[in-house]
């Protein structure tokens, strides 16, 4: 599950694997080398959203 957001520092797009983001990985910006990661306090919210999204995607395939 890939998405991308713009770097808050230099506006370059940063490719993000959402599942790995939830797992605690950080992603580097190719423009300014800044690293973004998910704050621990939002981990549960994103995990629930990702699980819900995967259910919807699975239903869509069938």
């Amino acid at each position, binding site marked *: 599950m890939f998405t991308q957001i*713009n770097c808050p520092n230099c506006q370059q797009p940063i490719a993000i694997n959402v599942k790995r983001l939830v797992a605690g990985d950080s992603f580097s910006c190719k423009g300014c080398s*800044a690293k973004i990661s998910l704050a621990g306090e939002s981990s549960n919210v994103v995990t629930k959203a990702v699980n819900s999204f995967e259910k919807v995607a699975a239903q869509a395939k069938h």
Partner: protein
Amino acid sequence: MSDAQPPLVSMAEQFTGLPMGDLIGAPLLAAAKANSAMAATQTKFLLDTCFAKETTDDGKDHYQPVLIKMTLSRGVLVPVDPSQPDQEPTISEVKTTFDLPLLTILPLNSLAVDDVSIGFDMEVKSSFSETTNEKTEEALSAQSSFSAKVGYGVFSAEVSGSVSYDSASSSSRDTHYEKSNSAQYSVKVHAGQIPLPQGVTTIIQAFTNSISPIEMPVYGEAG
């Protein structure tokens, strides 16, 4: 070659009766319906998961985007204190926390029929072929021989001979007649995923832009 040859198939007639609307339109319509259903599911998912619904006093629903906290880490060059010339500049890591709408990190546009290809090929061939072969052979052969013996006193003579005659003639005629026609009807329909609607893209872009840090004026420079 016979005089009355069977007629070839009319190509136009073969293609006229095809239910092209069903052959091509039906699968395309099914894909469009599936896409529409997924769009509805996507909208419901968006509103249920990515927005928090609040009902105001006047009974109207108000959707507030769910924000998640992200951490930005980057190196900052710490300048050297001018009063300490021997000190070397250092790079320290600074962490900044910012809010990001949950909506922006979910790949919403993946919930769609991304590719539909319908291929329909029809080929009609009609041919007629006739081969005639005529062959005539004639052979004539004749052979005769003779011998004669004559004797007169102590003399004698013998004569012998033979005559042969061979004649052969042949004629052959091959006639090949062929006629054919063919037609091919090929239809290719491609439907690809269109990008997110401009309105959704604008909203996501606005959310994305909102996470950009705003540079505060340095104290003393303002006003």
